[in-house]
């Protein structure tokens, strides 16, 4: 099957900075692929290359099997883009914004009217039909922004941190709408700093570090790579004692940003954990099943350690 997006061994330099270092990714029809990684790891550069805002110095990007370089302006009709910052015309009404962008994509008048009506309904914008966009709240503006990115029925929807700039309530609503798009078969490439967002929305996740993918798979596949079933976050005045006890119990210990996390081999109750750590001056402890956040920390940490090992060798 031809991938909607196929990125092979892409390299990109900004001056002497090697931003993308052999980046590879495949996105198939109907998939929602999350691209996660720390700031500066090259996520936005990947998206900008896919959207033809940047070119790569080496490697190849294919959309529906065709090299991006050969598609020219046609490529822009295949991709829809929604970024965290809404880019709309505040003096126009929601439907007027949609009509404007539809005309740029060359939709006929009939197609335009149908599509605008359809999107206004899907994104529940009808109640704001006569409100200027500048007077809408941030969450509603972001809904419209998402609708604009779908106006031309793109084959690939690129969402660059789509919920970063909105409040919690609006974020939950946007998640619901993106889930609706996912369930209707829209192919999506998403970047996010909210790991819960990626866990909820993505069928597959690629973890990125220093310009390349270091781990990839479904959320459950990534979770399976953590040496534990649950994570206990522990506070204590005596970290040494906790570490020693955890190691005696065969639990792996991770320390990051002053926080101690114990990877438990199976789901244990709080009571069982507290009893196991008795005598180690624990002041607070919480436990939860492993999440994408743990996989993220574990796998990116592993990759960083490998890189350090290699450079030291």
């Amino acid at each position, binding site marked *: 099957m031809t991938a909607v997006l196929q990125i092979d061994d892409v390299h990109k330099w900004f001056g002497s900075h090697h931003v993308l270092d052999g980046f590879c990714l495949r996105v198939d029809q109907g998939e929602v692929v999350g691209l996660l990684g720390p700031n500066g790891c090259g996520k936005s550069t990947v998206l*900008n290359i896919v959207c033809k*805002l940047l070119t790569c110095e080496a490697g190849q990007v294919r959309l529906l099997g065709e090299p991006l370089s050969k598609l020219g302006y046609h490529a822009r*009709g295949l991709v829809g883009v929604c970024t965290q910052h809404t880019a709309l*015309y505040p*003096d126009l009404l929601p439907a007027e914004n949609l009509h404007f962008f539809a005309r740029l994509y*060359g939709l006929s008048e009939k197609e335009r009217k149908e599509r605008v009506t359809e999107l206004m309904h899907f994104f529940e914008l009808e109640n704001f039909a006569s409100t200027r966009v500048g007077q809408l709240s941030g969450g509603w503006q972001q809904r419209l922004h998402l609708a604009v990115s779908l106006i031309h029925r793109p084959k690939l929807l690129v969402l660059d941190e789509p919920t970063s700039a909105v409040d919690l309530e609006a974020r939950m609503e946007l998640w619901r709408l993106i889930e609706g798009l996912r369930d209707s078969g829209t192919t999506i490439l998403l970047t996010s700093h909210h790991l819960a967002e990626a866990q909820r929305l993505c069928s597959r996740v690629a973890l990125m570090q220093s310009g390349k993918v270091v781990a990839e798979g479904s959320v459950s596949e990534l979770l399976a790579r953590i040496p534990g079933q649950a994570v206990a976050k522990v506070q204590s005045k005596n970290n040494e004692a906790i570490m020693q006890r955890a190691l005696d119990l065969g639990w792996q210990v991770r320390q990051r940003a002053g926080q101690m996390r114990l990877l438990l081999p199976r789901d244990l109750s709080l009571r069982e954990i507290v009893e196991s750590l008795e005598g180690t001056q624990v002041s607070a402890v919480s436990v939860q099943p492993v999440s994408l956040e743990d996989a993220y920390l574990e796998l990116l940490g592993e990759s960083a350690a490998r890189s350090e090992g290699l450079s030291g060798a």
Partner: protein
Amino acid sequence: MHTSFLWAQTRAVAQRLLLEQWRQKRGLIFWAVFPSTMMLLFGLVYAHNDSMRAGLDAAAAGILVGAALFFSCLGGTVAVIAAERERGTLPRLLTTPLHPAAYFLGVVIAQLLLAFMQVVMLYSIALCIGVRYQGSLLLGGVVLLLSVFSYVGMGFFLGARFARRSEEVVVALSAIGVPLLVLGGTFFPLEIMPQGMQAVAQINPMLHMNQAFKGVAAYGKGFLELRFELTFLLVFCGLSLALGIHSYRHLLDVDKSK
């Protein structure tokens, strides 16, 4: 890209700009009030004074080309670019198949229509206060067309290179525009300026726009009599558009790499 698609995009951009202008009621009021007030004030001063009455026709032509179209077409274009950058819509447009030429032409067409409305409005007022249009309508139209193209080209240059925020538009226009207006003979005839200023004014394109339109509208001059001003204006228009297109391309490259 098909010409019909390019034209459809051009129309979409022009219509959006005109709709936005229409929706910004306060801006629209100032757009109408500023040149109308100037026309009325200058008209009343000239009409009141017998020795100056003869200069009324030239003053009206100068206000139209030198003040009204300057702020409307040049200021309007700078404001469009600054607003696109400020709202982040320019990078958004770069992700669509919008051709740069369609965007450029869309802005030109919107400014042409606004200029046409301003010409009709101002000359309606001018005719009411006794101004006479002496020359060829066609030649006057050509001068105005070249002036508008020049202003839009300069607007793209200033907007793309200097105006990053809307607030900067007023400052940039005042700093660059007002000296050009004064040296262009918009407010005072060239003859009353000191010799040195007259020499500097000769390289000011606005002087030649003013003199060309005043020549047609106030003195009924023809093509041959105005060939120097028209040639200067034509060359300046070409340079201005080339500079505007170049600046716009540069702006797109800068925004792409962000």
